[in-house]
């Protein structure tokens, strides 16, 4: 009965119903819209935090660039997820000599490794992270064909190259072709050393803007390849390595302050360079989002407070305004509970309908406001601070900004983030084992054997915890070796190695080793190509054996990861103390055991 009475009252008293409905409707619409916008802003803030590429850049204060040690200080921070440092011949870093002047002919039937062609060359730059290269990061350049440099390339296992569009068009090159990088090392007096390095084209990039001088756009090889190739040069050709800038990808906005603290703590004195950050667009966007959040919350708060007060007042007023009706119904014998129930039901019915329609309308209003905010506020904020750099400059002192766009929506937060592959740093956690390896030549028991001994290929394997390989001497016991020096590199061989007996008898064996033999060393004498043995050497002291383990076996020599990096750096462009460490693979400690 009370349903019938309530429905009839609602229909027969339209002004009261409509007034009550619209009052609730407007409150709900305002509340829904405010809360949805607030929620959309919160989503957008977290999306921005997740998608924004936070980059700290180490830029030089002086023209001659930065020291590698400065870069090393920065790389000790665990917040650094990835980094980029670019080496180019212009900076004296990539194998010194001539640029890529000789390219293979697609028409040739001969092996491309030994074919030289005349033609204009292209500068080559080595990068640790192509996506963090300024021109790519800013969106000025993008990969047109192929994948770009891969993890295999970055690790130094595959000699990859990404070439510019103009070079591809000029020589009819395509992804998958092999090109030969050709260097003419002029450092040996009276002797010219030619070096030919094969590279597979894995990407062709293009510039999204019109360029004045296309020759300024180089080909890119992975830094590890650049370093490895550098080993092929005579010692004298290795110039002091300095860098123009280094960019570090950080985990988040809060990482900036931590990063600076860590870098300072690790000894960087900021004499040569300074750290700059690309937080301007992020800050502009997040400030705008916070403002919208605050406005939405304020509106929601006001609407809630005022709305509830008005609603309560109006509900009470409506109840009291029906006193005569309530009295009459009471006199007519309607129980008080039913009278109040009928009135409550009327309010609930109106409330329910108003809430339902109000929420729906709130979504519409919120979405419309979101669109308006996107067009009028966020779009401008995302563009306002974007750095545009000149073509001639190498952007050595500007922060790197990615043209990130973010838009709020009640349905889905729209964002345009970076879509390029990032070469993340491999780091070793507490329960992980980091393993790296590189191939070298043994050259005998003394440095003089370099010219007389037969070269024997073997791999040096670096493990972050040598104890997992069941070594005969545990890591803690190494300092007890007679004449131990932390500056020397100590290694272990397999129990089945021919060296094992000698180590057992004498306690240790000294090996001299030379750079890897993955590629041919060739020199040109007249018109013929000849093998070259002009290589550097390093000393490795074998002090024990390793047992059965999943990381190394056979003729491998096992060293600690830090020693591995020092050994590697001996043959690379960098000095032992400031080598850019790379970990080849990371395994869970338990799983591999």
């Amino acid at each position, binding site marked *: 009965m009370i349903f019938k009475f309530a429905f009839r009252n609602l229909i027969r008293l339209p002004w009261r119903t409509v007034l009550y409905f619209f009052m609730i409707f407007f409150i709900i619409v305002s509340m829904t819209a405010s809360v949805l916008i607030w929620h959309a802003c919160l989503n957008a803030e977290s999306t921005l935090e997740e998608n924004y590429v936070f980059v700290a850049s180490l830029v030089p204060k002086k023209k001659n660039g930065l020291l590698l040690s400065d870069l090393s200080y920065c790389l000790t921070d665990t917040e650094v997820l990835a980094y980029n440092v670019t080496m180019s011949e212009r900076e004296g870093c990539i194998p010194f000599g001539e640029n890529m002047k000789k390219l293979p002919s697609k028409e040739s039937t001969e092996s491309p490794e030994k074919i030289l062609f005349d033609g204009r060359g292209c500068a080559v730059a080595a990068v640790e992270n192509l996506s963090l290269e300024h021109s790519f990061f800013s969106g000025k350049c993008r990969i047109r064909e192929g994948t770009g440099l891969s993890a295999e390339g970055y690790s130094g296992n595959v000699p990859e190259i990404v070439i510019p569009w103009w070079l591809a068009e000029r020589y009819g090159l395509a992804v998958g072709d092999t090109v030969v990088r050709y260097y003419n090392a002029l450092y040996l007096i009276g002797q010219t050393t030619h070096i030919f390095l094969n590279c597979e084209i894995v990407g062709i990039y293009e510039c999204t803007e019109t360029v004045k001088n296309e020759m300024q756009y180089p080909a890119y090889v992975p830094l590890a390849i650049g370093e490895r190739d550098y080993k092929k040069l005579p010692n004298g050709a290795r110039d002091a390595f300095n860098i123009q800038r280094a960019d570090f990808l950080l985990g988040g906005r809060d990482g900036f302050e931590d990063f600076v603290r860590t870098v300072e703590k690790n000894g960087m004195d900021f004499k040569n360079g300074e750290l700059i950050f690309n937080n301007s667009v992020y800050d502009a966007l997040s400030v705008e989002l916070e403002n919208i959040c605050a406005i939405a919350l304020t509106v929601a708060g006001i609407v809630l407070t005022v709305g509830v007060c008005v609603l309560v007042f109006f509900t009470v007023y409506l109840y009291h305004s029906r006193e005569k009706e309530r009295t009459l119904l009471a006199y007519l*014998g309607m129980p008080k509970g039913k009278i109040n129930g009928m009135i409550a039901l009327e309010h609930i019915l109106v409330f329910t309908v108003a809430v339902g329609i109000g929420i729906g309308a709130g979504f519409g209003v919120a979405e419309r406001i979101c669109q308006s905010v996107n067009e009028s506020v966020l779009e401008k904020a995302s563009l306002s601070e974007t750095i545009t750099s000149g073509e001639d400059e190498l952007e050595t002192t500007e922060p790197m900004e990615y043209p990130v766009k973010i838009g709020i929506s009640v349905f889905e937060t729209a964002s345009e983030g970076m879509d390029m592959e990032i070469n993340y740093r491999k780091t070793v956690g507490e329960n992980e084992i980091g393993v790296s390896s590189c191939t070298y030549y043994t050259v005998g028991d003394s440095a003089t054997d370099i010219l007389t001994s037969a070269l024997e290929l073997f791999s040096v394997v670096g493990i972050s915890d040598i104890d997992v390989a069941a070594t005969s001497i545990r890591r803690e016991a190494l300092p007890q070796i007679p004449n131990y020096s932390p500056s020397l590199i100590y290694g272990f061989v397999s129990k089945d190695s021919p060296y094992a007996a000698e180590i057992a008898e004498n306690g240790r064996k000294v090996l001299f080793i030379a750079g890897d033999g993955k590629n041919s060393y060739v020199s040109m004498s007249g018109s013929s190509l000849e093998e070259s043995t002009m290589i550097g050497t390093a000393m490795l002291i074998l002090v024990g054996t390793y047992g059965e383990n999943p990381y190394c076996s056979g003729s491998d020599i096992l060293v600690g990861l830090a020693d591995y990096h020092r050994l590697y750096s001996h043959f690379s462009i960098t000095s032992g103390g400031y080598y850019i460490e790379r970990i080849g693979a990371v395994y869970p400690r338990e799983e591999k055991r």
Partner: protein
Amino acid sequence: MKILELKQLSYDYVTKVGKVHALKEASAVFETGVIYAIVGRSGSGKSTLMSLIAGLDVPKDGDVFYRGESLRGLDRDKFRREHIGMIFQSYYLLPQLTAVENVELSLELAKYKGDKRARAEKMLSLVGIKKEQFRKRSTQFSGGEQQRIAVARAIAADPEIILADEPTGNLDNENSMNIVGILTDLAHKYAKCVIVITHAAEVAEKADSVLKMDDGVLKMK
């Protein structure tokens, strides 16, 4: 026949000014077929008496007996629905309802078994409302007509007791006499117990019995 008996009814309520003794040991007997008038000046306790008789309120002391049964022991809502018909000075018609719906309302609440619409229309005709006016909203009627609709509503469920609180208070003389005539007929022709609270001497004159309320004390005049 005795239908209602008030025994030593007392009722107090508290106002800002202080405690008010609205009724002081009021006693009376009401019979069917008789029209009673309760007169007295404003604030003398007439309306309090009305609500106690209707079972809307419970006396502090004393009791109301319906056919010898105390109202305290009855379902008073049901008692009102089935045995009491109320008429008010300001009609108390629901503005959202038509004339016939207002009458039907009391039938619905009384759970009238028959054809409610036909009964309501019959009652309206009985009090002189024309058929073409049945579906007009109650606000579209004159004061006299509205009170007649109120009377129709009061008698629709065929209660034995009709309580009328100043039924002519808002009416002109002619309409007042019409309403009084209807109430008199209800008592005399239909054997209802009609209790009318009034200020009007001409209304009291038409009553078979007049009781006077004076400062909460009920006396036979």
